[in-house]
Every structure is written in structure tokens, then in C-alpha cells.
């Protein structure tokens, strides 16, 4: 079975990223769909790592903003990825500000729907491990979690993360180093946690 990563390139028979981006900027639905398939999983994981509540809603709002701003974007794939996650991060921050005064409520219908979802078993196992990893990252201080998620899930380099978060590259390196040690310490101290994450 072929194993693909959420940030992997598409298959070789697919159009190149530049062609997809050009068509998407012209409003071609197939190109917008290709962009969505390529980035939606990473976007959801990033948002769930920062704030598990309402990640889907924030993702939807992010895509709307991307759709509005897409015609004015200039750059290649790396720039697009950084631009995309910048919008995602800002959308998340806006949403958190907007909802900070509201009580955290869960609709019963949505909960029942989620429980009844017919996921394949392997997805369930994978999601279980993924959820635990995201929860573990969520225990980090916000700036460290930001750096880990943007570097690992979004695939951005130190310079991009520094520009996005308004920090110096040296600061980002320090943050990622601290985050790494902290995660390692938790996993090293608590073998049960490590087993749940790595199983």
C-alpha cells in the first residue's frame, strides 16, 4: 500500500503546482479542488493542534478568505504555502478573539453525527495516534506549539515561521529547541504517553 504524507507532492501525472495555481486564480473549480485536497489535511491538523474546538469552522473561514485573496497572490509553491498558513493563523486568532467571550457549547446533533460516522478501522487507529500527538503539542506554550505545527505540519522553514509570527529566526530556533526538549521529556518520563503516541 502506498503511503502518502499530508504535505506530499501530488502524483506525477497531476498538473504542476504553478499550473494549478494559475487556474485557481482564474476561478477554475478543478484547480481550487486540487488546492483544497493538497492543503486541507495539513490545515485541519494545524488548527486542531492550536485549538481543537471548531477547527472545521476556522478551516472553512480560512478557505473563504483564501478564495477572496487568491487572484492577487504572486509567487510559487513555497510562498503560497507560507501565505496560506498566514491566513489560517490569522483566521484562527480572529476566531479565538471573537469566541473568547462565548461559553463553550457543543451541539448534540453534531456530537451524535460524529459518533455515528463510519470511519474505516485503519483511519480510526491513525486518527487516534494523531489526536494524541496533537493533544500533546497542545500542551506546549502557544508560541512553541505554533512553531512546531508550522514547521512540521505546514512544512515551513525557520525564516517563513519567523516572518509569519513576527519573531526573529534565532528566536524561532530557540522556541523549537525548547519545544523539542519538552516533548521529549514528557514522552521519556511517561512511557504510557509514548506508547499511545507511537503505537
Amino acid at each position, binding site marked *: 500500500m502506498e503511503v502518502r504524507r499530508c*504535505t506530499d507532492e501530488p502524483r506525477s501525472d497531476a498538473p504542476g503546482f504553478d499550473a494549478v495555481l494559475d487556474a485557481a486564480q482564474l476561478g477554475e473549480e478543478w484547480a481550487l*479542488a486540487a488546492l*483544497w485536497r493538497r492543503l486541507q489535511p495539513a490545515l485541519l*491538523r494545524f488548527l486542531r493542534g492550536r485549538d481543537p474546538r471548531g477547527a472545521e469552522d476556522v478551516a472553512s473561514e480560512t478557505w473563504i478568505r483564501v478564495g477572496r485573496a487568491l*487572484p492577487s497572490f504572486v509567487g510559487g509553491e513555497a510562498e503560497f504555502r507560507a501565505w496560506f498558513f498566514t491566513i489560517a493563523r490569522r483566521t484562527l486568532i480572529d476566531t479565538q478573539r471573537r469566541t473568547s467571550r462565548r461559553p463553550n457549547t457543543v451541539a448534540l446533533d453534531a456530537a451524535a453525527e460524529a459518533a455515528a460516522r463510519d470511519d474505516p478501522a485503519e483511519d480510526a487507529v491513525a486518527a487516534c495516534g494523531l489526536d494524541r500527538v496533537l493533544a500533546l503539542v497542545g500542551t506546549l506554550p502557544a508560541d512553541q506549539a505554533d512553531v512546531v505545527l508550522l514547521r512540521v505540519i505546514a512544512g515551513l522553514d525557520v525564516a517563513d515561521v519567523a516572518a509569519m509570527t513576527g519573531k526573529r529566526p534565532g528566536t524561532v530556533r530557540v522556541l523549537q529547541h525548547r519545544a*523539542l526538549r519538552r*516533548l*521529549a521529556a514528557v514522552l521519556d518520563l511517561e512511557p504510557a504517553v509514548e506508547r499511545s503516541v507511537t503505537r
Partner: protein
Amino acid sequence: MSRRDVLSLDMERLLRRLDRDDRLRIDETTAERIFSGAMTSDDVPPAYRGVTIAFERLRSAPTEAELTGEAAAVASMVAAATGGSHQVFEPRTSPVRNKRRIVSTASATLVGSLSLFTGLAAANALPDAAQSVASDVLSHVGVTVHDPNAHAGTHPDTRGKSTDHTEEAPTTPTTGTGKGSDISQLAHTTPSTGVDKGAAISTEASGGKSQAGQHGAAATNPATGTTPVTTPNPGGTGTATTASGDKSSHGATNADTRSDGHSVAGSQNASGAPGTKP
């Protein structure tokens, strides 16, 4: 537990911590390679094996659940890109919440306005009419502010209205009856022209004080009623004699005496008569 046992436990904890810190020590290059995915869990230091596997999990292939809703998302993007409606993904806001927001905004605005009004009234910074109204209103709630009509005594404290004024406005144009009108009429009716016309108008306007049109005329001596010199002047000697009260003739005689008659000769030369050369 004895003191030795406590110390032993503390020492053991400290050694464990030092050992853990030692195992967690990692250089920046290795850390960077873990973050960029360049190292597998088999290559990293043992303490970082779990972190590396966790990172691999974060980069794992998309699940089916993560790829649901593509059609709706694309439709929403197309709508957003073309400026259309995007009801599918627009975060829903409750109408009740909207009403609450409107009510709270209106309340805040009202409270702010009242505070501002009261503050300005207390500072006596409102226009008199508004200050008077504010004073009346606030006096009902026990707040005393300055009233501009407080010292009006028996004078009415209300302003008059234009409708109170019963005198009818003139319906026909009135002609002027002042001095300007007289002078204007003179300017239009006088038969004089040129300098004489100007002099007539000026004299009328100044009440007879103007001397316009009397170019070059010497002022009349108020004591004698005569001008000191008749113009045009027929000769310098006469003028000098008249003007000096006949004293200049003495000066001329003296000059003749002192100059042995030479000054007379000079005068005659000046007047064109054949001079007598001494």
C-alpha cells in the same frame, strides 16, 4: 525515615534528573533535522525517538475524514472569489445574538451621550439655551448645574420669536432724505460742469468749508480782508514792499547807500534797462 534516607532519596532524584538532562541534550543541527523530517526515528538519539515518531504522525497521509466536504468547500471558494454569497461556510451568527449586540451598542451609546451631556452641563460648557434645558432636566434628578437664566431677575427667560414681531415690513421702497441724498441730487441736477461742478458739490458736502476750484488763490488775510499780493504779480519790488510793510524799501535804500549806487544798477540790469556802470 532517617535523615540519611532522606538525603539518599534526594540524591537519587538529583542523579536521575541529571541523567535525564544528559540524555535530552541535543545539538541545534540534529534538532533542525528532526523538524525538517530529514531524520527517521532509527537515526535520532534514543530520548528523541518518541518525538520523531510523533512528528511522523503529524506528517502522515490524509485520512478520509480530513478530505470530506470538498465539493462544498470549492463552491464556497468560487462564491467568495466571485463576490457571491457563501452561505455554506460563513460562520453563523445567531439572530438573537445580533439583536443583543444591537441593543447593547445602543445602550452604550445612550449612556455615553448622557454622560457627555451631563459632564458638559456640569462644566457650564453648553450653549446657553442647552445649558438652561440641562439645568431644568438635571434639577429633577437632584443634580445642580449652572443655569444661565439664574440671574435674569424679572426679565423673561425665554427668547422672542420672529412671529411675535407685529410691525409690518415696508412694502414700498423709501427714498433717501439725508445729506447724501441731497448731494446726490445736486450732482445730478447742477448745470455746472468740470471744476465748477466739483466745487459746487464739494462746497455743499463740506458745509461751505471746501475751497475746491480756487486753484492758486492766496488765502485772504482775516484781519485786513485783503490778499497780501495781487496776482498776477507785476513786479518783485512791489510785492516785497507790500509784503514787508514797506520795510524792504529801507533795505533797498541802505543797499544803495552802502554800495555807492551799485545795487540800483544791478536792479536796472535785471529789469532790462540800460544799467549805469559806476
